[in-house]
Structures are given as structure tokens and as C-alpha cells.
């Protein structure tokens, strides 16, 4: 068996550029008549190679728009690469800061079931874990209220609680550690540390360099859709700082 958990090989991904406005027929006619130039697609990832071993905790840093989130989406299967290949050894769970699968009219409990089924867990499994999920999110008093009555912090806490409750083999985290108050942040860090100790593979995208330095074995620096550095956290952070100041 391979000791790899995730493998990204020669991956390219480009997005079609959107044109603002309505009525593409007129634009098309204009282009036909040579009045309007064709817009080239945006290359979000250019020949990205990355392999992550089992149990490794990897942080991805880089400026806004450098392709960090796109890379996570490739890893979790949301985007299929234009070229190259993305492989994994187990199902990949992506935890992202935008509240997903959450329906405002349903209660917190129903939403946990819904989110659980999206993550591929059975109803029985979710019912069994319900208590621990609710207490981790500190939502005991609110769990049967409609989700729309929750504050944004509460919703984010519930999301993180569900996604991390199941102990996924591979967890991708996209800048969600900033949610909640200080005590919740502390506990979610603790939970990630638990997963690290359980030898789960964790990939974290964050701008919190101090935190990444503490938990990650390795940092990856991205710039303009390319991986420019991958290795020792201290060294990578130094390079990142140079990049920002340049």
C-alpha cells in the first residue's frame, strides 16, 4: 500500500472569465464583426504537483487569489482538473467557511442529519453522535430551533462540529478556524490536534501563520496558481513574508 494520502499530479485548472452584463447574443455579434476581443480563460492552477503522506498535517499559505481554495476543491472532487490527476486514499471531507447544506427553515437537529447525509453518514450514525455534536457546538438550548434564528457564529460552530465529529481520514479545512469565540477556537484547535494524533491527514488553508506553525508538519506556499515552496514551516513563512513585502 502506498503511504500517500493525497496526490496531485500535473494539475491544470482554468476558469472561463465571466463577462459582466446581459445579452450574450449582442456580444457574440459584436465579436463576429471584430469589435470585441475574446477574453482568455483565467488559469487558476498551473501544473501543480503535491503529495501528502498519511498522517501528515499540511498548511497552505499564499496571497488571496493564489489558488489555495481551488486546490482544496480539486482535492475534494468539486472541480475536476483540466489536465493532470488528483488521487486520494480515502474519502475527503472539505470544511469550508461558508455555511453549506444548511437550511434556515429546518431545525439545527434536522440540519445535522442533512449535513451528515451529504457527508455520506447513515441516519443511525448521526443520531448516535447527535449529543456529542450538540455539546461540542454548545448549542443545547437551540438545537430544536430553526437555523435561521442562529447567529452566524453559531451556524459555523455547528458546521465545524458535524464535519469534525466523524473523524474523517482526510480533512481539508478552508479558513474556518477563525469562527466562534476564544473558547470555541481553543476547542476546535484541540479537536484538530486530536485528529492529528489519530494519524488523520489534515490540510489547512489559513492566514493565521502562528497557528499553522504550531500544528503543521509542512507548509506549502502558493503564488499565482503555482506551488513555489513546500517544506519546513519556518522557512516557508519567511519566504511568504518576503513575497508579501516585495
Amino acid at each position, binding site marked *: *500500500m*502506498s*503511504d*500517500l494520502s493525497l*496526490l496531485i499530479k500535473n494539475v491544470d*485548472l482554468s*476558469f*472561463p472569465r*465571466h463577462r459582466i452584463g446581459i445579452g*450574450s447574443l449582442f456580444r457574440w455579434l459584436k465579436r463576429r464583426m471584430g469589435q470585441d476581443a475574446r477574453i482568455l480563460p483565467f488559469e487558476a492552477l498551473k501544473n501543480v504537483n503535491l*503529495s501528502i*503522506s498519511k498522517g*501528515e498535517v499540511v498548511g497552505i499559505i499564499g496571497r488571496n487569489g493564489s489558488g489555495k481554495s481551488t486546490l482544496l*476543491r*480539486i*482535492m*475534494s*472532487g*468539486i*472541480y*475536476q482538473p483540466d489536465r493532470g*490527476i*488528483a*488521487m*486520494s*486514499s480515502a474519502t*475527503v471531507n*472539505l470544511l*469550508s467557511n*461558508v455555511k*453549506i*447544506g444548511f*437550511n434556515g*427553515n*429546518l431545525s439545527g437537529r*434536522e440540519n445535522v*442529519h*442533512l449535513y451528515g*447525509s*451529504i*457527508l*455520506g453518514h*447513515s*441516519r443511525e450514525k448521526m443520531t448516535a453522535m447527535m449529543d456529542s455534536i450538540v455539546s461540542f457546538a454548545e448549542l443545547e438550548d437551540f438545537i430544536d430551533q430553526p437555523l435561521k434564528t442562529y447567529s452566524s457564529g453559531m451556524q459555523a460552530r455547528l458546521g465545524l462540529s458535524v464535519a469534525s465529529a466523524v473523524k474523517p481520514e482526510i480533512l481539508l479545512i478552508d479558513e474556518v478556524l477563525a469562527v466562534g469565540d476564544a473558547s470555541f477556537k481553543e476547542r476546535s484547535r484541540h479537536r484538530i490536534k486530536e485528529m492529528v494524533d489519530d494519524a488523520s491527514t489534515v490540510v489547512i488553508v489559513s492566514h493565521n501563520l502562528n497557528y499553522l506553525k504550531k500544528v503543521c508538519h509542512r507548509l506549502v506556499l502558493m503564488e499565482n496558481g503555482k506551488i513555489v515552496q*513546500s*517544506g519546513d514551516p519556518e522557512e516557508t513563512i519567511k519566504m511568504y513574508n518576503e513575497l508579501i513585502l516585495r
Partner: protein
Amino acid sequence: MKGTADEDLRGLTIVNPVSKTITAFPEALSNFWIHKGLIRNFTSRDISQRYRNSIVGYFWTVLEPLLLSAVYYFLFTILRDTTDSRLPLWIILGVITWQYFSKGLNASVNSLTGNKNMIKQIYFPRELFAVSKVMAQLVVTAMSLVVAIPFMIKLGIQPTWQLLFAPIALMLVTLQVLGVGWLFAVSNVHHGDIAHLTRFVTRAGFFVSPVMWQVSLAIEKAGPKSYYLDYLYILNPMVVPLELMRCAFDGTSLVVPNWAIIWSVLFSILSVYIGLTVFKKTESKVVKRL
């Protein structure tokens, strides 16, 4: 950096591989089975939140077609003085079946654009959005068919074995709605016109389908040898399901020719095959555009 050059790939699988044209359809079908729990959850979520905060709750499933049919019935009796006593039953069955088609199609056409946020945050087969929407609509439709019972009692119609036509009709509509829905859902991401077009088709189609009228009436008006009706059968795949539904409940025999029934079945199966294959093949490009 660990593992460069020739990695050991044993135990690794490709994340969400792009399907081949031939295998896309069977793969997607097996996905439905794998994700049956998810479909059930999405469906029940959809149904339960639809009637939340309402006083009469699920009674709306019956009330909505009933009220609509009442309006159509009076409109129709004013326009046409000779009426069959079975007309109210016919109209209500037509309205229920047509609403299933219209709401189901519009929901599946918007299934990608409407779930943009979820699609970008988590991966699961996106064809399931349309499936669960249509399933929810199917459950509502089945519930509203209860309304036919008092009409049948009033008219003294005994249920016959032809009642089996009803699930067949609903099945045909389901396949059409899903197949065309998947095809349109991916096109709708590229061109927002598709959703507008669908809304127009489902509204205009109401009049050119036997909802307020019956094929027997059309035959009567056009004469038995008219070939206009053949065009109707070919161009409008909803004619057969609507007529099947009517015959299922009133026990009369079908006036639609056999070839039209075969065509309708064929159309339904083909649309699902083509719709799902195109959906799976274009999915990766479409998601990037969302």
C-alpha cells in the same frame, strides 16, 4: 518533500474521475443507489419545509389543484355549454398531472444554478439535486390524487384494473422531467435563457396539452382521419401520460393509438439516457462556471 518521481499508487483512487460517455449513465444510476439516504433526506426536507408555517399544512397538496381546477372548470363551462358530468374529474386529473410536469421540470432546470453555494463547498453527485426535487414533487402529486376519490364516488365510477395506468403515467412524466431537466440544467448555467424558456414552455404547454380538453374531443373536432393529431402525439410527449391518467381513474378505454404510447415510452427513456449522459459529461465545465 516526500514521495516525488515514481510514487507508489496502490490504495489511491482518483477523486471524482470524469466518466466515459458509455459508462456515464450506468455509473450515475448506481450513484442513486449509493446515495439513497441522501435522496430520501433531501426529499423529506423539501416536502416538510414546503408546508411549514401554514395553517392547513399538507392539506395544501389537495387544496391547490382543487382550487385551480374549480377556476378552470367554471371558465370551461362558460366557454362551452355542453358538458360531460365527468369533466370536473378530468380537469382535476389533468391539472394534477400537468402541475407535476411543470413544477418538476422547472425545479430540475434550476437545480444547478439554485444550489450554487452547496455545489462549490462540497462534492456529491449533482444529478441528485434534480432527483430529490422531482421525488418531492412526486410525493406531493401522489398525495393530491386522493382528491379524485370523492369525485369517483359522486360519479359512481368503480375503480378497475386500469388504475395501474396511473403509476405508469407518473413514471413517464418522471423520466421526461428528469431527462429534459438534467439537459436543461447544464445549459441553464451557460445561458440563463433556458430557465425563462422552460417557464414559457410549461405555461404555453398547458393549453396545447389535453389538460382542460381531452384527446377524444380533439378527435371529434378534427375528424378521425386528421393527421394533425399525429403531430400532436409526436411533438407533445405529455399527451400520453395525461390521457393514461384520465383512463386510469374513469375506466374508459384509451383513444390514443398504440404507436403514440410506444413513442412516449421511448421518448421518456431516451430523454433520461441522453439527459444524464450529457449532464455527467459536461458537469466539470459547468461547475466552473457557477
